[in-house]
């Protein structure tokens, strides 16, 4: 079921026509990177952003709903955390194999696995955030005549925001890294050039370095974006003594 390299696809270096660097198998060939940016690296990067974005997005929706539920019914917190931790222990390649009979060799299979892994990072952080809302603030909100919904939207969620962002940061960075494994199932994402290069007997390694560096860069960029978002959305968390 693992794919074969598709003929003389763009990833396999063309020794004959490649640059000198490529032909002589240098450690890293920037000429290869610029030559194959458009047909290999850029599409892989876009696919990778998609794989990660969808996984974290759906994971967020699930973990967020579960956290709200567990915030109202405390006893649910333990079991939900247990299940998400259990999911996380399943090796990704094994999980793909388990899912294929149900969802086939599809993006869905990959996403289900990636979503399952985000929960262990998102859910506990969300619950911690909600539980850390000061009792005084809740008491006063109630006394001022906030409805439950107003309390949630105007007090509880804003105060939980730093913890929510903290969970998202861990989840995004680790999902960017995990999503490279998708290439074992699908020709998608930054894992794919790496996967192909590993299968190749040639010592040419530029695509591994390039795709790896892009994954690291993507993770860093996403992380910085989240930090910036927190500064904008929760300015109070950065000022004063508290």
């Amino acid at each position, binding site marked *: 079921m693992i794919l074969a390299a598709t003929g003389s696809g763009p990833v396999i270096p063309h020794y004959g026509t490649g640059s000198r660097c490529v032909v002589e198998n240098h450690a890293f060939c920037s000429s290869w990177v610029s030559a194959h940016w458009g047909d290999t690296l850029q599409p892989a990067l876009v696919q990778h952003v998609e794989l990660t974005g969808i996984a974290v997005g759906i994971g967020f929706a699930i973990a967020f709903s579960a956290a709200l539920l567990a915030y109202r019914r405390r006893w649910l917190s333990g079991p939900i955390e247990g299940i998400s931790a259990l999911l996380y222990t399943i090796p990704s390649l094994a999980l793909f194999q388990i899912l294929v009979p149900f969802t086939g060799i599809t993006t869905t299979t990959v996403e289900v696995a990636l979503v399952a892994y985000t929960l262990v990072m998102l859910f506990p952080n969300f619950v911690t955030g909600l539980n850390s809302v000061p009792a005084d603030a809740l008491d006063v909100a109630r006394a001022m005549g906030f409805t439950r919904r107003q309390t949630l939207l105007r007090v509880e969620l804003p105060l939980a925001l730093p913890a929510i962002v903290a969970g998202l940061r861990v989840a995004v960075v680790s999902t960017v890294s995990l999503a490279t494994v998708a290439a074992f199932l699908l020709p998608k994402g930054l894992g794919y050039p790496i996967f192909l290069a590993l299968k190749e007997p040639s010592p040419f390694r530029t695509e591994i370095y390039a795709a790896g560096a892009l994954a690291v860069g993507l993770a860093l960029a996403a992380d910085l974006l989240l930090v910036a978002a927190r500064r904008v959305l929760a300015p*109070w968390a950065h000022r004063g003594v508290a």
Partner: protein
Amino acid sequence: MTALAVFRRNSRRLGRSSGSPRGAEIRLESVSKHYAGAETAAVENLSLTIEAGELCVLVGPSGCGKTTTLRMINLLIAPDSGEIKIDGRSTRAASVTELRRGIGYVIQEGGLFPHMTVAGNIGTVPRLLGWSRGETRKRVSELLELVGLDRSLAERYPAELSGGQRQRVGLARALAGDPPLLLMDEPFNALDPVVRERLQDELLRLHRELAKTIVFVTHDVDEAIKLGDRIAILRQGGALAQFDSPDSILARPASDFVRQFVGENRALRRLALRRLDQIELAPSGKADAGLPTVPAAATVREAVSLMIETGTRALSVVGEDGEARGTIRFDDAAGLLK
């Protein structure tokens, strides 16, 4: 125009004075509360009428049910039995959010929302009531002035304020919707003595100016004596030990419990409740020339203390303008307590 006048005018204009502008009457009728698992009742069959515009202090040792009583007024705690009426209307009659939006609530350290600026905190109730942005902003600056805070603090977060400033913001926030009734739960406990005293004075000033009904909980009997028009002393189980003016409680403690709770030096503390400009002074005669002077704003207790210090039995009372207002004699001071 003064901050107070602006506050009043805008309160009227916005139609926010839902009850009487002079505060609401609160009537507790045989109210009881028993927490599940507790051996004794927190509050047992408590009946109490707090008059409109009165500053009533609930005081007592811990476990006397004073905070429970306060929190039953805005239904943060539901009474097991009995009835609480605000201006004759049962608190159960209206929706609980409506009820609470008409009652200001202040707790220790102000209980501010840490994620909102000072302006955001003070504007909370106006926003809930659906005021426009402009009206809310104007109201916030009025209130900052009313509680003696600089407008430059509006964009600060609570963590960037001192304890006393936070407490003032908490008070401003509670006043924002111009409620006829304020509930204050040990609001000044966390403050150092100097700031605490200043805020007590400010609260008295605001109470004089705004004439709201205030129910104030404390465990500090001196704070109760200083602030209260009347004091309700509660004992274990929420039983009312005495409900009277500070002077009457000091003069005639109703029981050994009250006597013990109120403490010593009752005569001197009663003298501290009277200022020289509030009592009748003997006219200054020729013989009084050369007496030590005391400002008219001082208390009788301070005057007596000065007599002991200076070894005289009379003092000349002078106003702020330096003019003699009369003479206070030791015997007259003692006679005040009859």
